[in-house]
């Protein structure tokens, strides 16, 4: 524990936190984007942004949490930009099936499809992102609204819709009436 705390103040904190915590960032971004390449790009963007802004980091949150948040925002932004580019041609369903080309993404894509393949797939992008940011990441409603460029009421309604859909899905899984 002491080693962990001491390492915090060393100049190589970025390298250390990358080694230790990048898996968490990557998985969080993967859930948001549902695309291994976008998730990898989001983490890289976050690392570089955090590095550039490291003088602004005042230690009020853990470095890990700070980068985690930047990565999630990058993931949301990348997802939005890709959807904007593709929206004339693709709806949500075909967006989810967009091909990925890098070999390293195939395993992650397959694993993501396996793990995320049931209830959350029934949600729209907005509903899924709101649910993940609130229930898993613990963001405040106003933070989600700002990041997703919507209103707090919009976030609440998306959250409630997501919850209702997830409850229905879980009823089906478990054979409940």
């Amino acid at each position, binding site marked *: *524990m002491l080693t*962990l*705390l001491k390492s*915090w*103040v*060393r*100049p*190589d*904190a*970025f*390298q250390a936190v990358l080694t*230790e*915590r*990048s*898996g*968490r960032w*990557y*998985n969080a971004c*993967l*859930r948001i984007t549902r695309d291994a390449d976008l998730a*990898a790009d989001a*983490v*890289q963007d976050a*690392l*570089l942004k955090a*590095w*550039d802004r490291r003088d602004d980091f005042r*230690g*009020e*949150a*853990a470095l*890990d*949490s700070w980068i985690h948040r930047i990565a999630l925002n990058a993931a949301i932004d990348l997802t939005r930009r890709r959807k904007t580019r593709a929206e004339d041609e693709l709806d949500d369903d075909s967006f989810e099936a967009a091909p990925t080309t890098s070999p*390293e*993404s195939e*395993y*992650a894509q397959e*694993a*993501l499809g396996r*793990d995320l393949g049931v*209830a*959350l797939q029934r949600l729209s992008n907005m509903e899924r992102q709101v*649910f*993940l940011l*609130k*229930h*898993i990441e*613990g*963001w*405040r*409603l106003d933070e989600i609204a700002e990041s997703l460029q919507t209103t*707090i009421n919009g976030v*609440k309604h998306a*959250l*409630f819709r997501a*919850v209702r859909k*997830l*409850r229905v*899905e*879980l009823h089906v899984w478990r054979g409940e009436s």
Partner: protein
Amino acid sequence: MISDDDLLLYYYRDGHDAAERARIGAALAEQPELARRLHGLVARLDAAAAMPEVPVPAQVQQRWQAALERAASERRVEPARRPTFAQPRWQAFAAAAAVAVIALVFGIQKPMTPKPVPTPETGAAATNTSAYENGLKWHLASTERRLASLNEATPEERARLVEAIISQNRIYALAAERAGEPQLARVLRAFTPVLESVADGRGQTAGSVEQLSFELRVMQARLKADAAAPSHTL
């Protein structure tokens, strides 16, 4: 009648004003059925959100490392400054409580998670377990640091910091449940009201922490006894 939507916002500690929050809190205290409904709802959502971690592909990890090294080579890293300050009594007490929780949680963790011999079949599971344990260590270390830094915070900042700790606690409690460690999840969740009282500056912090510590020690003793049993000595 309290809707599921309102129950959920209550659980998230977000989206309600103080009066509404108090009304729902009082109703939950008076109506066990309502509390069961909330717990059932949260359990269903936790199940829906349960997603095992995917390992980062090696090439991706190398790409990040290279990008960071390139950026670092452009500008020299300056060492971070450690703030120095005197801690008031309640701060020192909160930090000590965090240390106690960390020590006790790790005391709980060890007997609960005997290490299996790695095999190809268990490799992925071991990676996930390792990531989870590492994450927990980081979270607890981070919690300790945040508590120590509360001294310099304004009441608003303090509330925000504590809120962040509570949110993270909830995430790790969820991870603990997924890892089959409901006791650890409960310990993490039990820390929440203590943190809330620290944030509010209420006078019962010491008693709450003592109660929590006592409960942790009882649990630790119970788990140690379990660990000594043949089924836990693999």
